[in-house]
């Protein structure tokens, strides 16, 4: 065993290896910087594997994401990748949707089988999003063998969604994203993502990113910056709420993760700039699919222990 690398965490009620936590933060931060996802759907299970209680892992993770997304947002702001107007609209929608989602979850828990629904939602959403992104970016990579940099997907299909979107009132320009649409559209989509992410208990980055790419038709690089911007505020809210109602935020753990992940996010933002939009998308799609298969596997394989702790104290 290493000598002075262990640190006791009073909230988590366990001690951890500082270097391991730091490394975990760095790896997840790198992904978060590249893809504009909070990384909660990766970090939380890994923390649980390190012996952190699930409730503490989830809450602490959101505290860490506050820091990581601050750093990431800053980096992307400098690169001109944040559409503040769009981000705010999504955020307002997300907060509204999150409130609705929390009520839905309460109702489901009262009825009994919330966990089943949560896991099935996960598998369906991840499979759908990951699969669609994967196929779509493969196709567009084939179409444009010598791709022009940063081409937003402008081939607007005349779908039912497209017609509905065009019929919404008060269209306005979103300069950073180079799109023109009604502010109601991001607001409504924000509500939808908010509901889903509250049900699934995640920041929602991995749903928000595809929504921005495919439904709002924003260019991938602006999507990443704007997503981080929006996640920053979502996680601020969660950190304070969790601290007050559940006492599950472990500040010290978050800080170590943060230093690791902030460094990772900075590197990730630069790395992301070097990759093409389609490459980014296919990588993210792969990641999402891997996580989906992991959850699916856990659903199908016989668990090691046939009992599980219930969240909360």
């Amino acid at each position, binding site marked *: 065993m290493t000598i002075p690398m262990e640190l006791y965490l009073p909230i988590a009620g366990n001690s951890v290896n500082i270097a391991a936590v730091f490394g975990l933060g760095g790896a997840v931060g790198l992904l978060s910087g590249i893809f504009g996802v909070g990384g909660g759907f990766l970090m939380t299970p890994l923390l649980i594997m390190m012996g952190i209680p699930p409730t503490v892992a989830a809450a602490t993770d959101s505290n860490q994401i506050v820091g990581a997304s601050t*750093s990431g947002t800053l980096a992307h702001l400098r690169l001109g990748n944040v559409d503040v107007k769009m981000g705010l609209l999504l955020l307002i929608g997300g907060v509204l949707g999150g409130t609705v989602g929390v009520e839905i979850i309460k109702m489901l828990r009262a009825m009994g089988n919330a966990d089943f629904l949560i896991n099935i939602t996960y598998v369906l959403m991840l499979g759908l999003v990951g699969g669609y992104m994967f196929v779509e970016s493969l196709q567009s990579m084939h179409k444009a063998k010598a791709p022009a940099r940063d081409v937003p997907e402008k081939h607007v299909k005349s779908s039912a969604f497209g017609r509905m979107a065009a019929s919404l009132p008060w269209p306005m320009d979103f300069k950073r994203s180079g799109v023109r649409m009604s502010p109601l559209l991001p607001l409504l989509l924000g509500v939808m993502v908010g509901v889903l992410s509250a049900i699934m208990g995640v920041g929602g980055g991995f749903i928000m990113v595809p929504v921005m790419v495919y439904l709002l038709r924003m260019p991938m690089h602006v999507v990443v910056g704007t997503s981080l911007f929006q996640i920053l505020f979502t996680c601020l809210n969660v950190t304070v709420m969790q*601290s007050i109602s559940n*006492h599950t935020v472990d500040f010290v753990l978050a800080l170590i993760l943060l230093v690791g992940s902030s460094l990772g996010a900075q590197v990730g933002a630069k790395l992301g700039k070097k990759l093409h939009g389609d490459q980014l998308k296919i990588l993210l799609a792969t990641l999402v699919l891997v996580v989906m298969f992991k959850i699916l596997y856990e659903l199908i394989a016989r668990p090691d222990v046939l009992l599980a702790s219930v969240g909360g104290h």
Partner: protein
Amino acid sequence: MKHAIVIFLLFVALPATVWASDLECTVSPGIIDIGATYNGTSLAIDGQVPEGSQVVVRLVGQAQNVALKQKGKVFGLLWMNMNTLHFANVPSVCLIDASAPLQTLGAAGGSLGLDGLAGKITIDPADADRSMLLPEFLRLKSQEGLYRENAGGVKLGQAKDGRQPFSVRLPVPSRLSPGSYTVEIYAVKDGAVEAQVSQAVEARLTGAPAFLADLAFNHAAWYGVLASIIAILGGLGIGLVFQSKGAH
């Protein structure tokens, strides 16, 4: 000290009273300080038992009620958390070591081991399948490092004047909550507990962990805001460091 033990045992463990003065022990440290660098510790326990008896040592936490979800299959395919089960009379921690395997110690050995402990746990609803659930429960707690049953860790010394010294180092896991714990020593002979004694051990937070826990539990709103501000400042700070280093 010996008097105190005799009086204690008179009240608590009547059958063992007669031999109580034959069993004595010291536990060190008597208080487990959980500071910033705490990563588990070990208790040094030694004492004397009547000659010819085997020794069982247990560190037991306070009894709790625990709610757990039972996993089951839905549609014959997917594993899901199903119904909630309430386990009562569950010690938070139970670490056992002995001078000989508990199975060789007869009835007393059985009741002092984890299986004996499981026998005292009650499960609500009452019609739950105990024979399946209790081993699973022990497995869950063992995986968390909170339950453990070893043998051979307790070393017996040379007997002298009908008394036999013993000593053991009992490793304590890092996942220890602050609170009161009890070290229990049993002298077992011919399958029965011949004498027993127990001593309290306190685990408490000190230093930085104590400060943080107080802040988190007693000033939760401040804690949350502070955690957020520090996270933002940390993120900004690292961002700025990168800006000055980055060749833009």
